[in-house]
């Protein structure tokens, strides 16, 4: 089972990085989303895998799933939604302002004097 989870994390990371290396905003956002899944699951696995154990405190439970990574990942999921929303909005804004959705700056986009003087 560990191998399956690890390979899934690896697949999602690889796909995420590949899409983030594309030239348009939309694949970059999707890539970032995939990378977020990968990172969240990775953080979650730092509590080690466990099935059929409660995360709820009670008497007579055989053991508990590690609650700490769960709490951290829970906030991470919500925060990453906020961040995704911001970059989606930035991508949309950039597309509407510039008329294209390329992520790399052209040479003519940089100020000629490098902002000096």
């Amino acid at each position, binding site marked *: 089972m560990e191998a399956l989870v690890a390979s899934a994390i690896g697949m999602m990371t690889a796909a995420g990085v*590949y899409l983030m290396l594309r030239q348009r905003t939309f694949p970059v956002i999707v890539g970032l989303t995939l990378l977020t899944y990968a990172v969240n699951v990775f953080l979650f696995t730092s509590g080690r895998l466990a099935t059929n154990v409660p995360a709820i405190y009670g008497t007579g439970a055989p053991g508990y799933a590690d609650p700490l990574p769960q709490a951290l990942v829970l906030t991470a999921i919500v925060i990453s939604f906020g961040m995704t929303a911001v970059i989606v909005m930035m991508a949309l804004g950039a597309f509407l302002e510039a008329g294209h959705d390329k992520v790399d700056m052209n040479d003519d986009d940089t100020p000629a004097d490098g902002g000096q003087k």
Partner: protein
Amino acid sequence: MSLALIAALPFLGALLPGLMIRAGKNACALVTGSVTALALLMLGLNAPAVLRGEVVQTRIEWIPSLGLNANFFLDGLGLLFAGLILGIGLLIILYARFYLAKSDPMGQFYTYLMLFQGAMVGIVLSDNILLLLVFWELTSLSSFLLIGYWKHLPEGRQGARMALTVTGGGGLAMIAGMLILGNIVGSYDLSVILENKEAIQSSDWYLPALILILLGAFTKSAQFPFHFWLPHAMAAPTPVSAYLHSATMVKAGLFLLARMWPVLSGTPEWFYIVATTGLITMVMAAKIALFKDDLKALLAFSTVSHLGLITMLLGFGTAEAATVAVFHIINHATFKAALFMSAGIVDHEAHTRDLKRLGGLRTLMPITFTIVTIASLSMAGIPPLNGFLSKELMLEEAAHTAWMANPWLLGVLATIGALFSVAYSFRFIAHAFLGPVRTDYPGKPHDPGFGLWAAPALLACLVILIGLFPMLTASWLVNAAASAVTGEVIAVKITHWHGLYAPALWMSLAAIGGGLLLLGLHPRLMAFWNATPRPEAKRIFDGLMEPFATLAGRIANSLHDGALTRYIAIGTLAIAAASYYAFDTGTHAIGTRDLMPIPPVPALAWLSLVLATVAIVIFHRNRLLTLVLVGIIGLMVSVAFAYFSAPDLALTQISVEVATIILMLLALNFLPKTTPIESAPLRRTWDAAIAVIAGVGIAALAYALMTRNPAFQTISDFHVTNSKTGGGGTNIVNVILVDFRGYDTFGEIIVLGIAALVIFALTEALLRAGPANDRLLAWRPDQRRAGDRHPMMLVVATRVMLPIAMMVGVFIFLRGHNLPGGGFISGLIVAIALIMQYMASGFAWTAARQKVDYHALIAAGVLIAAATGIGAWFNGLPFLTSAFGYVTIWPLEEFELATAALFDLGVFLTVLGAVMLALASLSRIGLRAGETVNTQPFDIDPSEGRTLKSEEAR
């Protein structure tokens, strides 16, 4: 405490001008001034104790492990400087109110000014050299902002850069010097260092430390050969020049020399470096000042010259000379600030400060003329004004000090310096105010309003008062400050007449006579001056800086060429390389933890996740399909969380998934629907290689982690054990969120709120007139529209579901503390229920029926969470300590009330507000792009004319 507060007040005050400027310039100046006045008052309350010879101290431990403590102390020297900084600061605030033009952003000016003031006060009150260094660098930074205040002037920007480079560089040298000093003594506290003269002076490191510290002091106080930045800094507005470049910042170097005087002075090295530098600076700058036509340049070089004079006196290393230096610091601040402000008045009214274009202003500007005359005569050292008193004492000291066993050299050179000083002082009066009235002034010169001349007039009065009654007005302060500098009890005796046998009398007479002669010969000397080639400091400086700037530019531009893909590739490869290095150089063995079996259903879930991931990479050019595939992956991740005993995560992930996909769909409506093929196959292979390296690395790391037991005892057990007893809840994850790690959660909901506000602000910016707005107005949908955009089935279904979904939200919220659920999840659930209404009947229709502002929801959420946290203070507990109890209300069962639930309510409201605000912002863009607004809940109503429609159409 009060000392730390004095230093903190200007910084707190720096926040006010930005707000108060909306209430008008007078209110802004008044508020800024009252903060300074308050600090001055608090300083005054400490003054009696200091004058009695006590040292007031405030000690706060900050980072004790580094020896960095926020310790402050106030002795005579600190009192003198803090008084100058705050007192003249107050006058400058008044003066600047009337000096700045309507178009100048005054709030910004006062903010910079207060930052600077705070940094200066911090320097003179610090009892810890590391703290002092922090404030020291802050003065460099804030003066950079002030000098470059007129951003549209290239001279201003260049002057600001030059000042920052020189004083900042000196500051770096000083940091090194101070660290050496701290190492020798074994403490970074000034009061300890000042008691270790023998240890410091006998150390091998004395000379390096001395040179490094002097570099800092000399650059700040514009001593030769670093004097060149000060005249260029004159591009700043005149209030800045009067404040920074005459009264305060340039004196920070002198302050440091005086502060370190007890431990560093008295050695031949100190004498020859400090006294000689001061002497050269004094004579050279005085000579240059005579040949400057720009009033502010003249004053700038004169300032350099006077700073040299004070440096020289401190360099003599005797208590008498140090006392004179302290006295001259007071006098110079009074007359030079008055002169700068007067030069500003002339510039303000005559629209020029070029001496060649001025003259004859005596009758046109009588008040200004009076002020300038008093201050200039004092600068020239004419009796009975205060400048005369300290200059006489200086000449006396110079006459009695031998340089390299030469008894008269110092005296002669000091007299020559004084002679030039007389000449340029008289030139200021003569060439600007005397002579015939001209007809070709660029402006119409006349005396300004009271507000502008009040500050210099007050200083001119001080010049006279100190001059006439030095023992009454200044000796107490000189005594206190000089005693603090020298460590001896000083009782100074200042008189106007030292007798016929005092050499100073004859040196003074020679200086005045020679000065007047020079002024008479000025036209001819000027011609000679102009004909002689001189090194141009700015050109040399620029020549030195140019290669560095080019090199820095080349490195920065090649690394930061604006290509995001390149940054990501470099970053990923760097992380991979570092990780591989760590792996390769470490020791490792196969993990020993028992592996879990693979049942068939999870294997199928894994397969669908992997297939979806591969499909995304293959089909990513079809963007809609990509979103569907992302949904599958998100679903599988949620299922995985549920399978691995994390119900809270599963609930969160699945609700976030819904919101994310809706958001991306809304955005995709306006973005291109496909991604074109742009990169060559080679590039794609290369990218794929990077991606595979990253994936394999992460997978290996995850596998290695999961197959091992934790190397150390985890802290999770603590949370499990204390969840019920300490936090009052059985859902450990939720208790961690709202109790154990409540502070983290508090920060996170703030971040979420900020993210939503950023989205709102971005939308506002897009909808303002501009290319984006034009594009939206001319928007043509690139997809076919549905014939029935708001189908009745969907509308009815969502209406029916809304109360049920709300109920589920409340249920999930309430049970969250003990069973899976909580504020995060219920916030998302309620948000999705509301979004469904938007989807069913359209944004505008729904928004018109919405009674709650999403901004208010976010604010209420953060405030409720904060209030819950603060509530703990009233019970004497730390922030966010939760309390809970069990109550029974008939006929219900016993149930629990916890403050954590209130905190969770804050989380709920913030999450709800943030999600809704983000989606509502996107919908507003849709409206601008011509989306029609429906007046009825659905487009096609088969039962037209029935009650449903009329009710909804209200």
